[in-house]
């Protein structure tokens, strides 16, 4: 049968990863609309409602427009670095999806070092920011890049530390194993023993995807977009897409590691093949929290950001690591 043939490597890998990339691009587009609608409802407005039914075609119009817009690269820019930066930003956001299990057996690549892969790939994102800021040759973008580099590299530390507890509890680095560990109902989810770690992960995840209150590399009101100030047209769209995709990735990883992934909250709600819906619901909820924070809070300053990272998040996560280790020894 043809279908069996498709289940063989490498076809299975190619098709599933293509599906995932398609999914990521669409998620980014849908999220732009979601962002505008959520902000509108928070701010007592309607948001886009003229393009298509209830404004549903707004992302389509935006994407087509950006696609046919002139792509300016400044005369002084380092052209190749400038053009490669959006790709370097987008690929990591897409590549993390490869290790996230969408349902029982629905994972592109079940790496036994899934968590390490996640750390490694997300830290490449910082490289893209630096490339963009340096390649644009503008003071604003250079400042944005420096801020981005400092922020993303510092927040890697609490991000990694906050996930070590999960690895200790489950005894595995594979995402699939971690999800299996949380089977049986919402009381088995890792968020309960690891609540401080979850909060630390969420905060450092916010910083990692450069959302308010940690959007210093962009800093719309001070450095006007920061590293992306010189981008136009499709390159800018790619940067935006990578931001939204990494936001979605962060939410998906958080729900996989702490909220049981595709596991249903109660055993009798098992949907079988459609269990990926549970992952979708959890991810959407977390994304909504991201957006809720975005439209409510002001932005931190660089020194305060560093204080929060190094003086609060890192000690808290290390302390909770010891607590976890002690508890595991005793029990």
């Amino acid at each position, binding site marked *: 049968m043809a279908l069996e043939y498709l289940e063989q490597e490498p076809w299975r890998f190619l098709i599933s990863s293509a599906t995932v990339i398609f999914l990521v691009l669409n998620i980014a587009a849908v999220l732009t609309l979601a962002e505008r609608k959520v902000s509108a409802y928070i701010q007592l407005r309607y948001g886009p409602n003229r393009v298509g039914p209830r404004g549903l*075609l*707004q992302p389509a119009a935006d994407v*087509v427009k950006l696609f046919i817009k002139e792509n*300016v690269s400044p005369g002084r820019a380092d052209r190749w670095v400038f053009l490669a930066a959006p790709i370097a930003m987008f690929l990591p956001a897409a590549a993390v999806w490869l290790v996230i299990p969408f349902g029982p057996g629905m994972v592109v690549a079940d790496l036994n070092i899934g968590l390490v892969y996640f750390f490694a790939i997300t830290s490449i994102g910082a490289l893209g920011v630096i490339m963009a800021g340096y390649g644009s040759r503008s003071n604003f973008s250079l400042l944005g890049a420096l801020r981005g580099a400092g922020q993303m590299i510092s927040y890697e530390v609490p991000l990694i530390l906050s996930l070590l507890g999960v690895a200790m509890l489950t005894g595995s680095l594979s995402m699939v194993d971690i999800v299996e560990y949380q089977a049986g109902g919402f009381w088995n989810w890792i968020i309960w023993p690891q609540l401080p770690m979850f909060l630390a992960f969420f905060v450092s995840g916010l910083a990692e995807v450069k959302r308010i209150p940690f959007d210093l590399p962009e800093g719309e009101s001070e450095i006007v977009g920061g590293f992306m100030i010189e981008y136009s047209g499709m390159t800018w769209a790619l940067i935006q897409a990578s931001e939204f995709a990494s936001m979605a990735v962060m939410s998906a990883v958080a729900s996989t590691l702490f909220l049981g992934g595709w596991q249903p909250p109660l055993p009798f709600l098992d949907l079988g093949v459609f269990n990926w819906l549970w992952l979708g619901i959890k991810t959407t909820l977390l994304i909504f929290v991201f957006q809720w924070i975005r439209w409510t809070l002001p932005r931190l300053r660089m020194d305060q950001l560093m204080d929060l990272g190094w003086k609060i998040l890192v000690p808290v996560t290390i302390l909770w690591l010891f607590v976890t280790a002690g508890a595991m020894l005793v029990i």
Partner: protein
Amino acid sequence: MQKFDEPNIITTSTDKLFNWARKNSLWPLQFGLACCAIEMMSTGMAHNDLERFGAGFFAGSPRQADVMIVSGTVSTKMAERMTRLYEQMPEPKWVIAMGACAISGGPFLDGYSVLMGADRVIPVDVYVPGCPPRPEALIFGIMTLQKKIEREQQVGYEKPRPALVDEEGNIREYLPEREYRQISEGKAHRPKGIKRLPRTYVFQRKGLPPGSMTDVGWIPPEARERLKARRGAGASGSGEREEGKEGA
């Protein structure tokens, strides 16, 4: 690649798609000039909500903007900046002149530093009268621009060029050369015998008295030598003054 001379099924259908996308995603540049900027902001706020039309994203950087709303009086000093911003915007781009000042100079028409309308330095597509126009008027202006965009074609149709008016009132094509200096002087009577620099040069000086950091017309000595050589004799009087200041 085939180059089409007249409209056919391919160009007309892509026209439809492109124009639909462009008109529904008009991102204005965050460019508040004067009083009208407050009404422009009011338009973006909850009561009038420009975002309903997909035009709510006010881009801070001109690279991401589609339409420039010239909201207020343009002074000659600002005209240079406005032209530069216009040139920094990627194609296709449109300009809305919002308010009497941006259309013609408005109540400040007689002023010695006021540009008599934004259309003297950049081509304007839609004029929205009022002082300041109500938010509804601006929304109407944007909808008018949307209608204008709908009619655009890639081939077979001469795109009506926005008018650019020179000092004598002749309509001419938009030239990217920075001509704001010659045509932006208004009607001010000026005494004779005052030399002007033919172009504006903006150089930044380092390590010198802070006062001189902001001299718009300051030219580094070496650059001035080069210019002098190119232009023959005739460095302006103000240049010498700058040299004196630098020495002090």
